[in-house]
């Protein structure tokens, strides 16, 4: 995931992602055209759905929050050249942390305190789910990609077991816990706005978004301003140089995976403390996986990740609207469009680099290859 050495930053983090996005939209447009709809109308509907209708922005930002957390999680691991595919499982287990804290304490402790503990719970449980693959990579050489994928499955199975057999609310059929006590949870923004006398459309956007913004700043600080971040980046760029510099590779890997897992775990505060108010099956809904594309597109920088998260948030929200407006554009079609964007800005993120490099060198180049 190294940045190009040749072209300047504004091209690699600014122009190229936009070009990728544009390509993805072009191809999506072709598909929409083929099924007999007007692509321009479709994109208009999508933008309106994501930003214009009452509450739309709230929904978009609510999705954005999830992507910021998982995107940052993946990005931190990337900085140490670890491919953490386990964001999904880490978020899920983070939810268990939230759920357990709330179920155990919410009858005895004041709601505010329970919320703080629950946030910590999400981080710690997510971290544990990252530490285990991290440890296996660092000490046993098990490849992190394989182990994190497996840990997603283990997390899913564990949660089904617990939610069906152990922490399910007695006397009902759906695999969910009881509601958390009132007073526990992160307030939704439209309710806070009401306290301030502002009228806002209802949306699930809650204080987690603010948390996500603070975490983003913290991420930048950690990676580029601390000794630990320096060691992580050294390790990511060159393990041999890191060893030469006396950096302990295995402990750095484990700590990185702990923080990465903790970041992914924070998805649970947005979903459970901010919206559902209980622990339920499948609340992670693929956010962990999309985080990979978000991190790639955001070039592992918190600002880029914020923009990419916003894009994916808008796609999620606008996509729902698309599904709603056009009878021929189904939910699957929307998934296809999202898939194309992930393909172009994730998997093919560096496809255009050689081209842009060539053009750049031709017109502005000071590329020394003598």
């Amino acid at each position, binding site marked *: 995931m190294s940045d190009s050495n040749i072209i300047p930053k504004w091209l690699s983090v600014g122009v190229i992602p936009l070009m990728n996005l544009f390509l993805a939209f072009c191809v999506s447009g072709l598909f929409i055209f083929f099924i007999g709809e007007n692509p321009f109308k479709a994109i208009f509907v999508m933008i309106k759905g994501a930003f214009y209708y009452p509450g739309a922005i709230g929904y978009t930002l609510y999705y954005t929050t999830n992507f910021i957390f998982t995107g940052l999680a993946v990005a931190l691991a990337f900085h140490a050249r670890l491919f953490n595919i386990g964001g999904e499982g880490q978020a899920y287990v983070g939810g268990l942390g939230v759920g357990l804290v709330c179920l155990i304490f919410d009858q005895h402790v004041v709601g505010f305190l329970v919320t703080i503990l629950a946030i910590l719970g999400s981080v710690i449980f997510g971290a544990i789910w990252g530490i285990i693959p991290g440890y296996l990579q660092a000490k046993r050489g098990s490849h992190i990609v394989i182990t994190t994928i497996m840990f997603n499955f283990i997390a899913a199975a564990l949660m089904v077991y617990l939610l069906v057999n152990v922490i399910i609310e007695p006397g009902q059929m759906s695999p969910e816990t009881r509601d958390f006590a009132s007073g526990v949870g992160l307030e939704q923004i439209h309710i806070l706005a009401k306290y301030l006398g502002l009228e806002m459309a209802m949306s699930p956007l809650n204080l987690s978004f603010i948390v996500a913004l603070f975490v983003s700043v913290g991420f930048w600080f950690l990676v580029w*301003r601390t*000794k630990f971040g*320096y060691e992580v980046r*050294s390790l990511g760029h060159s393990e041999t140089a890191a*060893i*030469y510099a006396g950096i302990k590779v295995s402990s750095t890997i484990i700590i990185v995976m702990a923080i990465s897992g903790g970041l992914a775990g924070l998805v649970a505060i947005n979903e459970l403390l901010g919206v559902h108010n209980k622990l339920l099956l499948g609340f992670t809904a693929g956010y962990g996986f999309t985080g990979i594309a978000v991190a790639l597109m955001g070039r592992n920088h918190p600002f880029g990740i914020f923009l990419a998260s916003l894009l994916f948030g808008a796609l999620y929200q606008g996509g729902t609207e698309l599904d709603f407006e056009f009878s021929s554009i189904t939910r699957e079609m929307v998934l296809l469009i999202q898939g194309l964007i992930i393909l172009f800005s994730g998997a093919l993120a560096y496809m255009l680099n050689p081209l842009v490099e060539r053009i750049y060198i*031709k017109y*502005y*180049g000071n590329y020394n290859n*003598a």
Partner: protein
Amino acid sequence: MKNNENKGGNEAIASLPSSTESAIELKNITKRFGHVVANSDVNLKVRTGTIHGIVGENGAGKSTLMNILFGLYKPDSGMIFLNGQAVDVNSPEKSIALGIGMVHQHFMLVPTFTVLENAMLGNEGSMLLRSGEEVVLDRLKGLSNNYGLDVDFEAIILDTPVGMQQRVEILKALNRGAKILILDEPTGVLTPQETIGLFDILRSLREQGVTIILITHKLKEIMSITDTVSVMRGGKVVADFSTEKTSPEELAENMVGRKVLLSIKKPTLKVGKPVLEVKNVSHESKDGVLVLKNISFDLKEGEILGIAGVAGNGQSELLDILSGIETLQRGQITVNDKTILPFQDWNSKKAREFGVAHVPEDRHKRGLVLPFHNYENSILGYHRNKNYSSGFLMDKRKILNFVDDLVENFDVRPRSSSISSGKLSGGNQQKLVLAREIESNPNILLVGQPTRGVDIGAIERIYEDLMKLKSKGTAILLVSVELDEIMSLSDRIVVMNQGTIVGETNSSNATELDLGKMMSGLEQV
């Protein structure tokens, strides 16, 4: 590829002209990469059946020029004539077909294939391997006898010495019909004896009409084997000489563009007490090979101890152990009166705390994190130091002040704190690494291959810095495969061969031949 494609290159042989004609003539070759002109209006003429040397610093444009000749780059303008005819060399295949062979600095051999299989690669003789092998083997044996290219056709490349691998490369080129041979830094991996052998081969190739272009930075070799020599600087050929009418000093001056001190003034200094003692150190590699056997030596304050040897005889492992990168397995090391025993907690961090600095052999893999900015690399390994950080945080302002002084005092160009170190030239990268290690005020400095891939101007500077450090009383352990470097810098020399120390001598009574014999394991002193 146009109509005159010809795998065996017989056409080129058939049209071989008389020896007064030029085999290669490059006219006004210009090649730009963006704004950078790698080759500017280069003219070069090489007579058939001669050995022509090309010297120049890194970045002078030698490689670009040869890559143009070999069809890897297309020149922006200019013409290439082979045997008097204008040709369009637009791919390596084409160039091979035209009878140009290239022996790269890093050999392009399949390590698990036999010598025969490697030598026939690219000209297999027949669709079926077996019948092809017979055809080719005859031809190769002929070539091998003709030119004294002594190889064992049955041997697996992995098991053969470097010298033989190089002969296989030459055979491979000849088998493809090469009449013009380009050798890129061919002696970098050879012992002095092997170099002599190679030069004998080159001479016999020359006698039989093969034209040879030799790219090297070793002026001594230019003087001993070439007929003519071109000096490149800044993308241009700045001078052409007939070798017998020039001198190394003149060549060096033309390469750098100013007078260069090739000899080094060693400060005379009383050596102090031993600061590094190595006792009976043995080491097993990950594959269970004993790479170091009972190594013992000591190193004193104000002394430079050179470790000579052909690459791969245990020097790298020794440096790794001393610098804490590898765990000590057997034996004992005493650093500044602190003793390290096998499997004790010994790592690079601790080595630095004990006053051991390390300029690693491979600055790309170890010494620098290439994508990092200079200011980040200027503290690599020292980032925990209180001068650059407080608590968890790095103090960017202090680091920037530090790196500004560093690039100024050690002449790292460009003087930039924010350029990424990967963009610096080899010499400037090395100066940066050396500067960082010297600035840590070590009392032991381990140096591996300080001038590998470094241009003459920078070499001069690096030697000066090492001498300055020595006169401050720092003990320096110098590992290098450049015998000249070892001989001119060291006070004492030990020679390693196959993981053991095969000899020790004072540098004042060392001769290149004696050292060479020891390096090849022929003689123990």
